[in-house]
């Protein structure tokens, strides 16, 4: 019995270590691993708080486990098995244990409030405001401008300049979603009827993965987004490209691809510069400038795009995008048309 009690935890720990360690390397590269890799002033203090709390938890857990194990197996003087010990005594355990716990917790309350204060608001006024709206199951991203022609609308990609705080306004078009780019900041719910806010700041250029993290229905598992942080100059260039309307040489119904698009797709999708002005689905004006399609599900290649158009319901069950039954001729024409949306 004693043998068992001592061995089991060690056995569990060592087996876990053997299995987990080689994979820890792989896991630390996980795109959403905020616990080891947070960047920017909106996320880093929280990461340190996480380390302190996790470390403290492990220590306390070990101390209590040892206390409990010792309590169970410690040697006792032989006594009459029929006897019962008196009720009094042992209160010191409660006083000391609860006292220490209270002091630690008091410290943690203060520390976590300080961290909350640090990450709740940026120190300087945000340079840029972006509105992100959650849809079933994708993200609309809008960069507002005083001049409506300068307005940018894109989807599932949030481009930001490096080193500057960016204010994000969060809305929802249907049910509650949550915006979460864990390496840059914690999550905030997007609640219909409300405009929530949060801020992010990337200190290094790069691509930061995000994910809807509030259960929102069938497509919840496939509702990813990416934050792409680039130098202010590159960001400016990107904005200028995105502001342009689609450069299409054949915006007429004589073009079979354009016709298919207008018949089948334009009810939901917009291409600025054409008559396609649907509001329920991502704006496709600069479709080919994006890294991924279907809210992070697939890399944006012509093959994937074709698969997505024909088999959306298999790739992302329940998606609002239907699987289109197009003839070879039609899909070829449509693909050719879409390939022009740079």
């Amino acid at each position, binding site marked *: 019995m004693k043998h068992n009690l001592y061995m*089991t935890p060690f056995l*569990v720990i060592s087996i876990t270590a053997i*299995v*987990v360690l080689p994979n820890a390397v*792989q*896991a*630390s*590269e*996980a*795109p*959403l691993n*905020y*616990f080891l890799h947070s960047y920017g002033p909106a996320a880093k203090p*929280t990461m340190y*708080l*996480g380390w302190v*709390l996790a470390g403290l*938890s492990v220590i306390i*857990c070990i101390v209590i*486990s040892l206390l*409990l194990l010792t*309590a*169970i197996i410690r040697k006792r003087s032989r*006594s009459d*098995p*029929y*006897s*019962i*010990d*008196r*009720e009094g005594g*042992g*209160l010191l*355990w*409660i006083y*000391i*244990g*609860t006292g220490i*716990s*209270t002091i630690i917790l008091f410290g*943690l309350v203060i520390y*976590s*409030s300080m961290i909350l204060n640090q*990450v709740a608001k940026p120190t300087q006024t945000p340079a840029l405001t972006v509105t992100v709206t959650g849809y*079933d199951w994708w993200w609309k991203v809008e960069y507002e401008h005083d001049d409506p022609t300068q307005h940018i609308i894109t989807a599932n990609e949030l481009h930001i300049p490096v080193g500057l705080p960016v204010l994000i306004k*969060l809305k929802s078009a249907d*049910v*509650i979603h*949550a915006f979460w780019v864990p390496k840059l900041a*914690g*999550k*905030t719910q997007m*609640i219909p*009827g409300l405009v*929530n806010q949060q801020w992010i700041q990337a200190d290094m250029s790069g691509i930061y993965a995000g*994910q809807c993290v509030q*259960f929102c229905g*069938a497509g*919840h*598992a496939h509702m990813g987004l990416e934050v792409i942080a680039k130098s202010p100059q590159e960001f400016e260039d990107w904005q200028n490209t995105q502001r342009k309307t689609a450069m299409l040489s054949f915006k007429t119904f004589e073009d079979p691809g354009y016709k298919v698009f207008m018949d089948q797709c334009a009810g939901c999708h917009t291409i600025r510069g054409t008559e396609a002005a649907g509001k329920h689905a991502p704006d496709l004006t600069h479709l080919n400038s994006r890294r991924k399609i279907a809210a992070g599900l697939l890399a944006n290649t012509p093959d994937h795009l074709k698969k997505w158009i024909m088999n959306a319901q298999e790739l992302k069950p329940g998606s609002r995008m239907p699987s289109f039954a197009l003839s070879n001729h039609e899909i070829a024409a449509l693909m050719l048309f879409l390939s022009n949306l740079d």
Partner: protein
Amino acid sequence: MAISDKKHNLPDNRLERVPEYGCAPTGSTVEMRLAHTWECNPGWRGWFSTVDHKTIGIRYLITAFIFLIIGGIEALIMRAQLSLPDQTLLTPEQYNQLFTMHGITMIFLYALPILSGFSNYLWPLLLGSRDMAFPRLNALSYWIFLFAGVFMYASFPLGQAPNAGWFNYVPFSGPIYNTGPNIDVFALGMVLLGISTTVGAVNFIVTLFKMRAPGMTINRVPILVWGTLTASVANLITIPAVSLAFLLLWLDRQVGTQFFDVANGGKPLLWQHLFWIFGHPWVYAIVLPAMGIVSDALPTFCRRPLVGYTAVALATMATMMFGFVVWVHHMFATGLPTISLSIFGAASMAISIPSAVAVFAWIATIWLGRPVFKTPFLFFAGFVILFVIGGLSGVMVAAVSLNWQLNETYFVVAHLHYVLLGINVFPVIGGIYYWFPKFTGRMMNEKLGKWSFWVMFIGFNAAFFPMHIAGLLGMPRRIYTYSSHMGWDTVNMITSIGSFIFAIGILIFLVNVMISLKRGVLAGSNPWDAATLEWSISSPPPAYNFAVIPIIASRHPLWENRLNESSERSSLSEGYLLTAGHETIGTSPIDAKPQVILKMPGDSYIPFFVGLFVSLLFVGLLFHWWSFIGVMTAACCITLILWMWPQKSLAQRTVFNADHSSQNNSEKI
């Protein structure tokens, strides 16, 4: 003849009938008369009409355990789907229905009802009474629970089960995004179940304050009683919030109101507040009685009383007090002002202080005691570790900014399973091992018992510890699949394997129950040499519980001679006889001085029919059968009138003295 010693009669002449005092050993005429009075009808008539708290308690336990198994199977199917990336065993819709039903089943149909089962069975035995305060209400509570459970599963075989998660956020659960009958089933089922929980809670509270054996002052009741009392008071306060929320949702869906409809000025956030104002105290309601099981049973295996009884009892209540002011920690990411978040965050951390009291009390009890390594002890000791891990991860998620990362990830899934399985399932199974001899008269097999513990303990940790890691790696909850490049493959595989190991542990336990029912060693009245009243009577207990109502002189009536704390001794074989029909003694709330002879109702079909008609009324609401609803309402009213109809045999006012300020009616006690 047993009725002797009239000189011991209570010198209280203000009671209109002086209760007879004496002994009633097994086989005596008095005892046989009691047995005859209290036994229930044989066969199916007794099955539908019994109001015996022991039968009802066992039914609660079995029904809740069946729900545990159903919920567990749902979990295993989900773990099979998640064991590898990009699996297509389940569609998202199937997965969403499974995790929703898993949550509903475990939280509403297993976790509280199983504890109600223990409390129903044990309260009168722990308190030295012959039944609960309202036996028929008790039966009603069970029937409605059963019907509500069946009701909530009604749409499952049609592939139309609730699919919006157990916390069912609007607008996803509203009429626009969820058009099937699924959410209506959930909403009406929850209102129905709320009736059962409410009447059950009332029964516990009144029983505690009015039905304790004479001399069992409030500071002598077992901690399980404190736990269930606290949970019951919390339920009375919070169930209206959730019933209201689900009623408003149902009205939105079926009648066209707009409480949560954004387009017409409704507020989705209102749902979250109403739900969590209920939801968080509920979490404590489903753990505090289980902690009480440990606080009461662990000392038996440490051969000493619990360390710090008063501190643990107060901590139990303090936990619930804090429990009312922490609901916003489920809503940290909803955009509320940071100043209020930090207050709720601090309260959520502070709630672990009373938990620390309990943990150190248990450790001190083991340390200072002489542990006996029987199966229940293993479950209780294992529980302490799981409780600590769940508590620590709870402190982590209470830090607001860290919560913004951890919330809605698998870290929270890990946390809540450590809390709910660790603090509910482990004590419950330990409690079944502990009280099985009392329930059935037979011991459970020790060897299988130890196997079941170790398999469950190892499986549990293998299943749920890696979930913390999955959460730290960013895995959101409630996703039906994940891609391999997310780095979550290994943790999910370990979790899935662990969950099946855990299920095997439960299976061993069930096999043990089956075998022990038939072939277990006969237990005798007190196989563990425990201290509390339920062990003073035969196993299984007779229908009338106590042949004489005992008179209590300490917290540990069966250990008094050995503890020898004072010269007073409880009187277990000699006490009030009360043989004129279904009778027990009513006592004062704090000091437990005898006040009144309570006349208890006998078996009755009425609770079954009230439960049936109320449930059919809800079926009618589901299908909009308006005339059927009218008929059922009338049927409910008629059965309730029959229930309330004055009966001469229950006319306790004839023995009740209008002046019940009987503070000093018995110097003897």
